[in-house]
């Protein structure tokens, strides 16, 4: 049986590898000017008044793929929450204060964390709302926002994180934002176009409000990614630091 499995694997890997190789050999040359895909994508992006061609590709030209990507993260967060939920025989430390973690943080780290916390949140929000005019967007900004919230943890501010992860608002935000993406697509259908077609006024190239539905989808994605990552990392933090932590006193 194992031999059969190995043989099947070899056949499968060889098949995929030869197909990939054939596809790679047929690709346009690296860095060729003008690039057949690049030229078309940029032209379409400019037609839609979206200065950041990457955002145009992701949220306009192939919004359906991005919807799938968004739900990958949504599903991952839901799965982690299910797997890492507190079981009936697990205890959660209530008394989690300076004694446990805050005291182990250097003053300098704490200071830098406090300074970086608002800056990171601001940068994250900027990256989300400027996705249509400059590099970034909902995914990148959302990840920065979620990292920013965990800077508070690195700075030793556990209560902030505790309050955050107990907020049902984060759960609700994730679900609402994930369905918001679908809602934008359905609005386009109600307007008589295809699902996720860019039906809003496009505005003027490089204006903050340009690109039609692209900024809207960026914001929705930004909220979804932030909420999903806060839930995801929050669950891991909870498991690593809080659950069962009552038994830990000598751990540094």
């Amino acid at each position: 049986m194992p031999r059969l499995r190995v043989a099947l694997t070899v056949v499968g890997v060889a098949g995929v590898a030869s197909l990939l190789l054939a596809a790679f050999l047929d690709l346009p040359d690296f860095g060729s000017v003008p690039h057949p895909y690049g030229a078309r994508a940029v032209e379409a992006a400019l037609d839609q008044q979206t200065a950041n061609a990457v955002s145009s590709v992701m949220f306009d030209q192939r919004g359906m793929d991005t919807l799938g990507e968004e739900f990958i993260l949504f599903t991952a967060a839901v799965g982690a929450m299910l797997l890492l939920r507190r079981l009936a025989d697990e205890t959660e430390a209530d008394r989690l204060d300076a004694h446990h973690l805050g005291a182990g943080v250097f003053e300098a780290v704490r200071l830098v964390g406090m300074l970086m916390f608002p800056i990171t949140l601001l940068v994250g929000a900027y990256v989300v709302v400027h996705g249509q005019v400059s590099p970034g967007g909902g995914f990148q900004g959302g990840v920065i926002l979620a990292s920013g919230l965990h800077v508070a943890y690195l700075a030793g501010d556990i209560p902030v994180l505790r309050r955050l992860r107990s907020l049902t608002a984060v759960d609700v935000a994730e679900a609402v934002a994930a369905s918001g993406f679908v809602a934008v697509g359905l609005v386009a259908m109600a307007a008589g176009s295809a699902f996720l077609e860019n039906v809003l006024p496009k505005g003027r190239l490089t204006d903050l409000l340009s690109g039609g539905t692209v900024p809207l989808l960026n914001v929705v994605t930004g909220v979804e990614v932030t909420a999903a990552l806060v839930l995801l990392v929050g669950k891991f933090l909870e498991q690593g630091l809080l659950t069962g932590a009552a038994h830990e006193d000598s751990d540094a």
Partner: protein
Amino acid sequence: MSSALLDVAMVATMLLVGAAALGVVLTSDPVRQAIVLAAYGLLLGVLFLLWQAPDVAMAQLAVGSVIVPLIVVLTIVTTARETRRPRDRPGSEGD
């Protein structure tokens, strides 16, 4: 950046990414590996930036050098504790 200088930077970053990837594989201690992984993620972000993919670079920096190493370290903390001391029954310990 002049084109020749950019070429040098691109090749240098590629070699560094390769070396860092090897470093990740050769690091056997998972905690150290998480740190090496973060450094590798940072270099990969620089590579994407030089290849004119700032959008991907941004996501790579945040996910590859912050979120993933953080989750790895937290998982190690949890599993190390579980293997060192099996979980007690509820209420058996007052603390």
